[in-house]
């Protein structure tokens, strides 16, 4: 069966198959156009950046727990003059860079870049992306972004990095006098942002084209796995939202470098400078920024939702409960996602009538999320649950997403948001969604697709321990943030305890920091497991999870060109425990329809009876 297409071990055997030729090490592993290599490159890079972002976060947590104390390990080197204590502007830089790294260099690229690249062709039955070179560029444009973010942080010494938060609200980010890091560093930061945008845009175009044009025979839209739906909708979101951010970024650069005047009103005296001249409007940036960055929240979530659906179905050996509602709710989230950005601006002074409309649309976006949660629980309902690491991470995803989603309701409702805006309640909310949901989903996905990437399984014990410690550390760190928020604890404060009403919250912050350290250390287990399993993990065949998707019909790892047998799709991806066959509880998308006549015993009213119906 391996004669049709070269597999991994074919390297060096000369010209064979459809014009794939012998390629050197560099082309194969570094500047590779193979979507799998690119996906793995993205994954490695984002895991590296995850450690960087996590280290920055620990810096933030340290300052909140032990303000103005000598920072362990790095303090005496970096802040020798002040006895190793952090300076307040450095704290704001940590906050800014933590968010920038985590959002732009971890969450978005790990979903769209790593898993999107690796999974899309495999799951739709294509031999590669539609535009392989563009795909390669989308990875290599990450490095200028990382370079410029790094440059922003290190260019003029550690204490002149961007310090205006990842939201970079002007006037703080537009005038170089306004903050220590608002000089050249902020321009570098914007450059980095632009490169991330270019990278995302290349990926997005590629994903849409691949998903629309390169599906295997029989792979109708409603036979696509939810992962692919998630990626598809994400790609659409990116394609429509990103230009706005890029434009806003260029406007800000033009304002900073060329003297344009979009955001800065006249008459401001910042840092004893001459009064500003002009008639810009700071809120313009907020609108433009959130027009991208709110959909971006879903860019950071929808693929994870899709992946969790796939993993969950495989681990409970059951079809997804309500496939079409799942698809529609993702589409609804994406659609509504474009008309809710104003909920970031309830207290910003925009027209209060907008507050009302944005409140209603924001409330409504909770609906598809709720539908998805119910469907996931429904999926587990009556299943034969395998409690492996993948499953644990998926359940954690659901559980954390419930918390993150529910706490969002307070923020969606304007009157309570007046109080909660820019307090730790928000911080708790988005960490529950971005870390609690997305990252647990990614941890599960790493374990789940690792065999497909490297032909070996990751260690289960280490995986479970990593999950346990991360879960405990995570909740210990972020759950108390709800209470901090209710107590009115504002974000981005280097020393909140100079305000009398927050003094008593320091012990709680210490507890949170200890949990954060635990969580940070737990990630070393993941990294260790990831690396060591490559050498020592149990070798597996094509379909270690007995799953249905197309990717499991390819060899592990798949060779260049993916499929040794061109796949033909006969049904949807979730036909687990199908009564059509007796000897096993899964029916792959490529399996020929069983000969036995079908008894119609399933619920006809449900959505995904597409198995036979939509050939």
């Amino acid at each position, binding site marked *: 069966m391996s004669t049709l297409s070269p597999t991994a071990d074919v390297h060096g055997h000369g010209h064979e198959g459809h014009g794939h030729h012998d390629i050197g090490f560099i082309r194969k592993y570094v500047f590779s156009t193979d979507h799998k290599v690119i996906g793995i490159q993205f994954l490695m890079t984002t895991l590296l950046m995850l450690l960087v972002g996590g280290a920055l976060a620990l810096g933030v947590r340290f300052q909140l727990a032990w303000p*103005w*104390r*000598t920072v*362990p*390990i790095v*303090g*005496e080197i970096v*802040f020798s*003059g*002040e*006895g*190793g*204590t952090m*300076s*307040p*502007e*450095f704290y704001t830089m940590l906050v800014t860079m933590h968010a920038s790294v985590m959002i732009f260099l971890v969450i978005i690229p790990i979903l769209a870049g790593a898993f999107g690249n690796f999974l899309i062709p495999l799951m739709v039955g294509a031999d590669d992306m539609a535009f392989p070179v563009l795909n390669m560029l989308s990875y290599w444009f990450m490095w200028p972004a990382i370079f410029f973010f790094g440059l922003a942080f290190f260019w003029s010494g550690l*204490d*002149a990095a961007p310090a205006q938060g990842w939201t970079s609200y002007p006037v703080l980010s537009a005038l170089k*006098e306004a*903050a*220590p890091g608002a000089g050249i560093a902020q321009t570098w930061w914007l450059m980095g942002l632009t490169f991330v945008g270019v990278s995302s845009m290349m990926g997005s175009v590629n994903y849409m084209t691949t998903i629309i044009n390169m599906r295997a025979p029989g792979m109708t839209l409603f036979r696509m796995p939810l992962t692919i739906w998630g990626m598809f909708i994400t790609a659409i979101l990116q394609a429509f939202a990103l230009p706005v951010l890029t434009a806003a970024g260029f406007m800000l650069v033009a304002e900073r470098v060329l003297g344009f005047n979009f955001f800065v009103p006249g008459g401001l*005296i910042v*840092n*004893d*400078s001459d009064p500003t001249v002009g008639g810009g409007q700071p809120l313009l940036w907020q609108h433009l920024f959130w027009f991208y960055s709110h959909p971006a929240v879903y860019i950071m979530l929808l693929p994870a939702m899709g992946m969790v659906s796939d993993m969950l179905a495989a681990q409970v050996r059951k079809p997804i409960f309500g496939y079409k509602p799942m698809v529609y709710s993702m589409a609804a989230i994406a659609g509504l996602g474009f008309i809710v950005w104003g909920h970031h601006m309830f207290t910003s002074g925009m027209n209060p009538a907008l507050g009302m409309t944005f409140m209603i649309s924001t409330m409504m976006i909770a609906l598809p999320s709720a539908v998805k949660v119910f469907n996931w629980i429904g999926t587990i309902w009556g299943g034969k649950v395998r409690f492996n690491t993948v499953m644990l991470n998926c359940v954690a995803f659901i559980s954390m997403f419930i918390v993150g989603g529910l706490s969002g309701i307070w923020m969606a409702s304007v009157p309570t948001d007046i109080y909660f805006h820019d307090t730790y309640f928000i911080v708790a909310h988005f960490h529950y969604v971005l870390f609690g949901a997305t990252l647990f989903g990614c941890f599960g996905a790493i374990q789940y697709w690792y065999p497909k990437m490297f032909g070996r399984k990751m*260690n289960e*014990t*280490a995986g479970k*321990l990593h999950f346990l410690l991360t879960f405990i550390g995570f909740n210990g760190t972020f759950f108390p943030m709800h209470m901090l928020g209710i107590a009115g604890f504002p974000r981005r404060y280097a*020393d909140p305890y*100079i305000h009398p009403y927050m003094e008593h919250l320091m012990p709680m912050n210490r507890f949170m920091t200890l949990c954060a*350290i635990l969580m940070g*250390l737990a990630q*070393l*287990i993941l990294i*260790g*497991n990831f690396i*060591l399993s490559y050498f*020592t993990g149990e070798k597996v065949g094509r379909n270690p999870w007995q799953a249905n998707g197309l990717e499991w019909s390819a060899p592990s790892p798949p060779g260049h060109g993916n499929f040794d047998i061109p796949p033909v799709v006969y049904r949807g991806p979730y036909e687990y425990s199908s009564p059509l066959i007796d000897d096993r509880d899964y029916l792959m998308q490529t399996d020929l329809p069983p000969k036995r006549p079908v008894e119609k015993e399933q619920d006809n009213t449900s959505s995904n009876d597409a198995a036979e119906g939509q050939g």
Partner: protein
Amino acid sequence: MKFSDTIVCAVALLGIAGCSSNSVPQFETSQDTGKLFQPARDAVESELQAAFGTPENLVVWPDLPVDFGSFGGSIEKVTTQGTLVVPLAGQSALATDERLPELSGAAVLVAPAAGGEKGAEGGENAAAVYRVAHYDPESKTLRVVDENGKPTQVTAAEGDGVQVIGDGLQKGRNLYLKHCMHCHGVSGDGDGPTAPYLKPRPRDYRKGIFKFTSTKTGVRASRDDLFRLVKLGVPGTYMPSFMLLPDDEVSAIVEYVRWLSMRGELESKLVVQLALDFGSDQIGPKRTFADMSTEFDAFRGSDLPDIVKSAGEELGADWSAPEDAENLVIPKEERVASSLESIARGRKMFLSEKTKCYSCHGETGAGNGAATEEINDLPGQPGVKAEVPGLFDAWGNIVKPRNLQRGLFRGGRRPIDIYRRIHSGIKGTPMQAFGNNLSDQDIWDLVNYVLNVPFEKKTQASH
């Protein structure tokens, strides 16, 4: 296997994180000190160390008028060994009655009645040193132990003076490191980590000069001036208002700032003396390092203690003076009511050759007078021209004359504040004192004019 490795690795990292010691900020020596040759530099540092200590371990130099929040009283009764009945009373603003129960651990000086309190302050008239074990404000009993915390015999008689040295300065230090250090620096050199981004630069205390004072020309800033400044902030600069810090905390900060100023001044006084003979640039073929070391050892043995002593006395006098009511600028005449006539007189005065206000502040008060475009002398070096045009302050920074049209008055907007700015100038800046040349009447007219400048533009435009 691999899994346990990971755990070991994790535990090791935790160990590193946990064991890193808490280091303490240190005073930095000034640039000028750095220009001395090594033994002289060491000598300056050790003198400063002896007189002021380190941020971690502050030293009491009794010559200096520093308020440690001390308490004093005379012994009413010596009961048993180590227990005295003393009604302690606060000797300063930092020594409030609420602090009495918290005195444990503080140093106690007991001096014979003849020496009285003076003996205790001077610290030379054989005052015995103890530490407070406990003080009960109710029964006024003071139990003392020796310096090592062991029970001890007290040789004291009724009527002997007792002084308990408070921890006001330590308190000030802690607050300073929390609230002020990031801009003003650990040593008060105006060069903390945040300072490079601030315009105008944070005050460098080491010259002992503060701009906005209520005192006469040449007199240091009073405690009240600094207190008010910390409380109200300096509008138009990054010095924020600390209005809501409790008064005692602000007083403690003020005391620490004064103390840092004195430390900086002592340093520069010593360096001025030493730089003539012991600069590192004077080492050359004619005068080797060894020659200089020999000379310096002699100097150190004979002259240096005297220099330190007289510098201390000067500092004591300089920093006591502003607390003396005689040195305050208090107008003799009441403010002339602000009227169109008064404002017109003020404007005339502003534009006159007598004051030449316009030369810096500009004819419309916009702070753009001709002097800002001229090459002026460097501060403190008459006859040496600066390389760039502009006005310089004593710290070598270019200062802009105040744009009076903005209505921002850094030293305060009360008439008395502006009166004082005109009367005794803004210290350390080219804004000179007019108190000797102008009558009170003239100054009040100027005050009325200055206060009216922000509104004048509009009235002119409407004409």
